[in-house]
């Protein structure tokens, strides 16, 4: 989608049209989530600290993130996509891969399908999107970014080689600053440059990712479009208003984030066995401590207590600027679950009842109606 959050804000308030709109965290330390193209002209980009955005674009319209609203629109769009093919892999709130192999017979050429999709999204949501079509998954993503907004870019099978040879390496998904540095060290600037290296050389220098680079250079990308991605972990975190070393405050935040994580686990019907506490310090160094538990859980109190125990066992040497809780080693809740002998175990009946009641209250009256108190 093009400038997704900003576009929705403009949709909701048409008077904003043509003005630079910046959506993001508005507190002193917030960052920009999305900007529309007008704001980008001022040099405001996503992930930029909000105060900087305000410096660059003082006349901008600054709006807070209304995630629930965006999610609603996102769902509508994903449903439209699923009308075309069931092979829809949603990768973020406003991005998805579609495997349209074989549906040309029914719906016309890839270009026609793309125009169709754009038209329906436009009609039903009032938003524009950019589509990339390519024989390889990652190239489709690259193509979609090429002519934004409202773009449609096609890389045909015969063009792949020429296209790849000129493609800068930082356009490859998964290639971040560090890999770019590593690649530049060998004089590799484009995917074409990669071809000079053997499979073994790339494997040796970049490990398994080197293998992927090798395949990409050859124009081979076997990664399929996966309709529902397996959720590997569920996490909740926040950057603090101001750095703190106050254990009381941190414990309070752990309660909130553990609750977020647990209620999402319950909503998704998942349980996890690994509980992680993540803290980023005022010098931007990071600490991540995990513990494994005997049996999978989705219980708020248990997750919160475990994360607090991790905090207790790992005294902080600096002030924290970000804190978060994650649960991983997830498995779908099956009937096949071990029952507990005592009431105060991870599967405690009483705690399960509390969670259930809280979930029901939130379902009916909204998420903020009830939350855990702190001791």
């Amino acid at each position, binding site marked *: 989608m093009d400038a997704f959050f900003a576009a929705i804000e403009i949709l909701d308030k048409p008077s904003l049209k043509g003005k630079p709109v910046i959506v993001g965290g508005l507190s002193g330390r917030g960052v920009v989530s999305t900007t529309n193209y007008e704001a980008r002209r001022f040099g405001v980009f996503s992930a930029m600290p909000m105060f900087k955005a305000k410096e660059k674009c003082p006349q901008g319209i600054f709006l807070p993130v209304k995630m629930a609203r965006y999610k609603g629109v996102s769902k509508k769009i994903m449903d439209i996509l699923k009308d075309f093919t069931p092979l829809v892999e949603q990768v973020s709130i406003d991005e998805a891969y579609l495997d349209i192999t074989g549906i040309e017979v029914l719906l016309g050429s890839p270009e026609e399908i793309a125009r169709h999709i754009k038209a329906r999204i436009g009609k039903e949501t009032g938003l524009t999107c950019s589509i990339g079509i390519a024989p390889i998954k990652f190239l489709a993503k690259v193509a979609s970014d090429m002519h934004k907004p409202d773009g449609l870019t096609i890389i045909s099978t015969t063009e792949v080689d020429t296209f790849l040879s000129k493609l800068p390496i930082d356009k490859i998904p998964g290639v971040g600053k560090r890999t770019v540095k590593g690649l530049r060290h060998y004089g590799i600037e484009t995917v074409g440059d990669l071809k000079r290296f053997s499979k073994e050389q790339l494997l040796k220098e970049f490990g398994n990712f080197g293998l992927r680079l090798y395949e990409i250079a050859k124009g081979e990308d076997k990664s399929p479009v996966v309709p529902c991605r397996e959720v590997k972990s569920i996490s909740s975190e926040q950057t603090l208003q101001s750095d703190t070393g106050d254990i009381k405050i941190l414990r309070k935040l752990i309660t909130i984030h553990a609750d977020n994580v647990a209620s999402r686990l319950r909503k998704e019907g998942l349980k996890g066995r690994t509980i992680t506490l993540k803290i980023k310090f005022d010098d931007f160094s990071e600490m991540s401590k995990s513990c*494994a538990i*005997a049996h999978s859980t989705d219980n708020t109190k248990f997750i919160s*207590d475990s994360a607090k125990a991790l905090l207790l066992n790992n005294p902080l040497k600096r002030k924290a600027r970000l804190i978060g809780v994650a649960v991983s080693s997830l498995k779908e809740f099956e009937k096949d*679950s071990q*029952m*507990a*002998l*005592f009431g105060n*175990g991870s599967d405690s009946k009483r705690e399960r009842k509390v969670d259930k009641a809280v979930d029901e209250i939130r379902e009916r009256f909204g998420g903020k109606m009830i939350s855990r108190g702190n001791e």
Partner: protein
Amino acid sequence: MEIKINRETLLKGISRVQGILEKRSHMPILSTVLLTTKDDELEISATDLEIGFQNSYPAEIIKPGSITISGKKLLDITRETDSEKIYISEKDNNWTYISDHNAHYNLSCLPVDEFPVLTEPEGTIMIEIDSKIITEMINKTIYSITMEEAGFKLSGVFMEKIKKNEEDFLRMVATDGHRLSMVDKKTPDIQKIEIKDGVMISKKGMIELNKLALEDGPPLQIGLKQNNLVVKKGKALIVIRLLDTKFPDYKNVLPKEKEDKESIITINRRHLLDAMRRMMIIRTDQYQGVKMNIEVNYLEMVSVNPDLGNVEEKIEIKYEGQPIEMGFNPKYFIDALQPMDSDVIYLNIKDQTSPCLITGEQDDGFLGLIMPIRI
């Protein structure tokens, strides 16, 4: 200090303490042993601050004194030599000289006064207790201990004294929250020692106690004083610091005296144990359960793992109650059945949400409880 000691004797003494030494401690002194001359003997001490161990071995004392030395290195030196005697001598500035006539070691050691000796609290009342009974009690309970970091603190065996029909018993209980194992043994002398509401002894402590009980020699003595469990056997002394944790209110989950004769399953222990082992073969973390269909006079077990396949087995039992279908983790059965002595055991199952009670005729004072898995 200057001594000569028999290789075999030193090897026995130094091997014995390896389990106590800390391998990756932040305190290097905890990886050392303290060697002290006592009349015509050499006393070897080791501690990890939770457990202290001391024992004396005959040696030729040339000059009394004491040294510390890495327990692992002394073991290696003793193991690698082919001479019968080893000569150890203290040099200036914490250097130690060791010679076996072939090699001459000069080792830099830590000062003796840094070694934290866990001494026996004064005035501990000791009672004699049958080594075999202690070993039996430990073997039949220790497997239920959980070493999981989170959750409640169940990393030890709970020990208390109880009265049954005016007689004094020593009781050991362990649980991980999903199963429980308990042994009561008549111990008339137990009333002499003060246990109050029971004590928790760490798994490592129990392992050391068991090792000592299994060694040949004079009778085993135990006592409790100032948060320590004191164990003696001849010249060997172990001081185990009690765990400062609360054991759950296990008495609530113990079955009530009255038993419904009809619902008792009589079964050959060996048969059930072997069958459970076979059920384990296709088990993974994801699919832990075995389904047990209990019918009149036979038990059918089914274990299904969608990734692999399934395994089924039928064994003969004596049962006259209503057919019942239950799920269990086979590992819990294997752990419980393995250390039992009876040929014929009894399972008592009330319903699908209550624990299965395991007892055996020749397992006097033992009971095991296993919570089912929801199927």
